[in-house]
């Protein structure tokens, strides 16, 4: 929103107030994060102030903890599996949505409604379903389904605009030249969509990696990182909790930034 250059003096004071206000909001956003980073270096054996001394003790504990390691491995593998499934399903949806079919509006609602369904309900419906289906809770059954359910609408929303834009005539040309659909998909469609697919995968991964509430209802005795952090918070006797938190925040920010950059690139490419 470019402001006109006229009457700059009349604008100076409101402008200053606005900048000051925005600055305070940034402080509100970042002060808690700065505090948790500071606490993660605290050598005291409780989480709080005043700071007794600064050091890497809690990070050493966090890295050495087999609990943390297992949860991290679970979260990464699960995230990759959930993101793969969500991306493939969303790719089918996005490609299919370029064609006409009956009840398209209803299908679109089926895809998008899970976004606004409260997480608690998203968790208990699966708890009930798997309870009746006698599937015992576990990472690779119930939790995987919960994560794909959560990531799928976002994967679709990330992919669809990118698929929608590209020219269907290229595909049709390949078909006219005698290529079978599978070959067209592999040689024409997928290469063109690669950046969009990568961005969708990464975004789905971050959604799965951070998912907590739905997971809580279907996880049984396994642990993902958010569930482990939750148990550490509830138990209230884990001085390395801030260190674990900082490591996780750093990891998710890096992944999200990569997803963001890839996404922007695929957007400007197509």
């Amino acid at each position, binding site marked *: 929103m470019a402001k006109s250059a006229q009457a700059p003096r009349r604008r100076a004071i409101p402008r200053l107030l606005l900048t000051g206000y925005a600055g305070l909001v940034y402080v509100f956003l970042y002060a808690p994060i700065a505090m948790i980073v500071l606490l993660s270096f605290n050598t005291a054996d409780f989480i709080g102030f*005043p700071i007794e001394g600064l050091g890497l003790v809690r990070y050493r504990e966090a890295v050495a903890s087999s609990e943390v390691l297992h949860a991290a491995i679970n979260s990464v593998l699960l995230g990759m599996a959930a993101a793969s499934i969500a991306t493939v399903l969303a790719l089918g949806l996005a490609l299919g949505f370029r064609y006409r079919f009956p009840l398209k509006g209803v299908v679109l609602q089926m895809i998008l409604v899970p976004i606004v369904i409260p997480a608690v309900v998203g968790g208990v419906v699966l708890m009930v379903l798997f309870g009746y289906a006698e599937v015992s809770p576990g990472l690779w059954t119930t939790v995987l389904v919960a994560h794909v359910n959560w990531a799928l609408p976002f994967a679709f929303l990330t992919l669809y605009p990118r698929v929608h834009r590209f020219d269907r005539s290229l595909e049709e040309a390949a078909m006219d030249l005698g290529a079978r659909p599978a070959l067209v998909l592999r040689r024409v469609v997928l290469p063109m969509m690669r950046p969009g697919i990568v961005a969708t995968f990464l975004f789905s991964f971050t959604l799965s990696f951070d998912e907590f509430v739905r997971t809580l209802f279907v996880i049984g005795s396994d642990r993902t990182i958010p569930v482990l952090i939750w148990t550490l918070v509830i138990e209230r006797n884990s001085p390395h909790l801030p260190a674990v938190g900082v490591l996780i925040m750093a990891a998710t920010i890096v992944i999200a930034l990569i997803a963001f950059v890839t996404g922007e690139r695929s957007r400007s490419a197509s």
Partner: protein
Amino acid sequence: MTAITAANINASREARPRRLEPGALMIVPALLWLVLFGVVPMILLGCMSLWRSTIFGIEMEWNLDNYRTIFSDDVYMRVLAQTLRIALASTVLSLILSYPLAYFLASAKGRKKTALVLLVFLPFWTSYVIRSYVWLPMLGRQGLVNQVLLWLGVVDAPIDWFLFNEGTVYLGLVYVYMLFMTLPIYLSLDRLDPKLVEAANDLGARPAQTFVRVVLPLSMPGVLSGCTMVFLLACGVYVTPQLLGGPSAVMFGNIIASQFLTSNNWALGAALSVILVVLVLGCLYLAGLRWGLQRLFMGAGH
């Protein structure tokens, strides 16, 4: 050339009378998934809300007792009222924080703008649980705020009431969901044609007038979708009140969770879930947003 091709394709597409084009079959795998893990469990939950929980498990005996219990019991109605109040308060607070911030972002330029927008996004990409937890060491007896107040000599003993009340839940919710308010307002302000503002100025409007008569009305769609999003998210929240609310600020999500996790009354929990879903979808319908949400989430999801 391309225009002609595209036009031809469109023409041939219009000419085709079939309702289902074969290419649409690519949605089938996802459709099966959505029916099996989306629609079927919801129907099951709806049925269960009409059954009866006994100490021996669920009896499939159709009745309305769960709903009768909920609507006649003061406890549930109080929690419902409290949920709506908390959701409303955190929506208003988010709006108060977000609007000026969004305005500030929209009026920035170039690389600085990209950096400032990214800085608003960053915290929201990190763990939801950690961002809720963070208020415990911030506001607790040994928290940062209390220790600073003690050090400054403002108080003699740490203040207890910072945590575990409704206000703490407002704070936690605003911190966790504010982006869903900032983003749509920012997008609507950013799209606003600067010529309109210039025209208003040229015609002699004072800055305040320009804002109230031009900028504010044009950013209302963003405000509306932001308010709807934050309100809906806050209505269904579980983590924030569980961690920061204490016994006095229980919300609907928490009583649903406790039916399934502790008191083992699935049928009642199912009825509570149905009420929450109806409430959320009803609000969404009333807001008239429906799938305009699509745009909002596309923004949130990069």
